């Protein structure tokens, strides 16, 4: 009896899964070709540079471009500020849950640092390493929240084409107006979001279509209280901007070398890179080491950026192809990647810091 019951349950689960899968395919990009697409979101406009949400006029000649990654950065700073305020407020000998988590993280890195260097140096390196870990982790995990990349302001088609033209000019590419895929949004205001099934609202401007037809489309779009344009998200995962990752890498490497100079002394640390004592080979090796320090900044920058940006694109693509279920395994993957990247960045900083504060003579031991 129980076996049969279990089997019917199993069958039910299989049927539901298959149904969900079929609905997902029909609602996604594939179904869209055959009149479906009631669930999918359009493949978002993917660009490497962060989108400018608003321009703030500072002086007459200069306007500061506030990008969505900067907003996300401040959001993660705010989240961390709140969490640490909670921890500080209720700190006690008998830890609460939040304090336990904070202590686990701090102790993990403290033990790691103490196993690599002396305890005094570990205390010195800890704040930077922890800040990198917490910031990268928080912004990576915030970046996969719903709302990131799907809520934003609507940029009109004319502006979008204008921006795309500028970008193509800088890149030296030829610009096609048909490359700009706009979406039709409900409502009049500048606030927009990508609703379920918005994949059907993508407006194609084919090269084949005549100007007459294009005009007709435009009229059709505007007449019913709708507007055509591109979505500029308010939030975009902070580490999908090279400025963010480069900023962290620069701060990390500057501090690492500051420690190198302050702990070893100016001459001793500098002699690792400009070395006249060990002959021409030593001098060449020193120059190579100097170059590798810069290579570290670049690898820091692009490793984090590449991983998180790829994850973002993957999630967009999954929401486009297999809405509803396709995104689920990749959300888990992104959580994992976000943690791993945060660990890699912080632990590598720790390793570089402990290497930089060991004098050249000691390295051979």
């Amino acid at each position, binding site marked *: 009896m129980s076996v049969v019951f279990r089997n019917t349950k199993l069958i039910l689960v299989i049927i539901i899964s298959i149904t969900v899968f079929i609905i997902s395919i029909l609602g996604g990009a594939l179904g869209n070709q055959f009149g479906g697409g009631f669930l999918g979101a359009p493949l978002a406009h993917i660009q490497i540079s962060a989108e400018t949400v608003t321009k703030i006029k500072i002086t007459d000649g200069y306007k500061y471009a506030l990008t969505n990654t900067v907003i996300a950065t401040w959001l993660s700073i705010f989240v*961390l*500020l709140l969490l640490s305020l909670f921890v500080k407020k209720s700190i006690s000998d008998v830890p609460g849950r939040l304090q336990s988590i904070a*202590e686990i993280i701090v102790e993990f890195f403290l033990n790691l640092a103490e196993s690599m260097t002396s305890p005094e140096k570990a205390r010195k390196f800890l704040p930077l390493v922890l800040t990198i870990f917490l*910031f990268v982790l928080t912004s990576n995990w915030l970046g996969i929240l719903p709302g990131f990349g799907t809520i934003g302001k609507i940029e009109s088609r004319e502006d979008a084409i204008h921006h795309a033209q500028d970008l193509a000019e800088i890149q030296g590419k030829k610009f096609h107006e048909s490359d700009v895929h706009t979406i039709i949004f409900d409502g009049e205001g500048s606030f927009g979001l990508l609703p379920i099934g918005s994949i059907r609202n993508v407006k194609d401007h084919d090269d084949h279509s005549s100007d007459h037809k294009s005009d007709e489309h435009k009229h059709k779009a505007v007449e019913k209280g709708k507007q055509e344009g591109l979505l500029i998200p308010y939030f975009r995962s902070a580490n999908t901007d090279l400025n963010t990752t480069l900023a962290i890498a620069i701060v990390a490497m500057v501090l690492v070398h500051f420690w190198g100079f302050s702990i070893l002394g100016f001459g001793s640390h500098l002699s690792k890179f400009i070395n006249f004592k060990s002959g021409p080979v030593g001098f060449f090796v020193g120059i190579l080491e100097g170059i590798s320090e810069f290579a570290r900044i670049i690898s820091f920058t692009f490793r984090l950026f590449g991983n998180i940006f790829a994850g973002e694109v993957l999630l967009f693509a999954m929401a486009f192809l297999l809405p509803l279920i396709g995104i689920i395994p990749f959300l888990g993957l992104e959580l994992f990647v976000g943690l791993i990247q945060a660990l890699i960045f912080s632990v590598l900083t720790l390793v570089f810091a402990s290497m930089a504060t060991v004098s050249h003579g000691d390295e051979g031991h």
Partner: protein
Amino acid sequence: MSALTPLGLNLSGLITQIISFIILFTILYKLLYQPVINMLDQRSAKIKDNLDAAEKAKQDIAKSEESIQDSLEEAKNERRQMIVDAKEAAAKFREDEMSKAKTDIETEWLKARSEIQREKNAAIDEVRKNFAGLVITAAEKVIDKSLDDKSHDEVIEKVLKKSL
């Protein structure tokens, strides 16, 4: 920077992010690391103190147990000594009393004897005194008759013997 623009790199964004990161660093340093590390240090110091205190208490207990044992032993010895002393004192007291009683008795006895002796001597003297008179009387009686030397001595002897 213009060659890097397609990558989204620009000076204003970079400076913003560096400043943001430094602000975050400061915030976390003041609000998270310092309190948490202080707390961890305090706690480990506290645990160390408590362990030390427990160890010390253990040692104290052992020490006081030892001292209790010592004082117990001491008390036992003292008691034994006291009993011995008391016994000795009792024996001595008894001996003293006994010898005292003996000497008392002896002196009493001697006294009594000397008294007796004295009484006896006195009695003898009395008798002697009385005897002289008697002798004179007896002599007078004998003289009335014929008294030679020989009978004289005989009389005295006889009288003396009788009187004693």
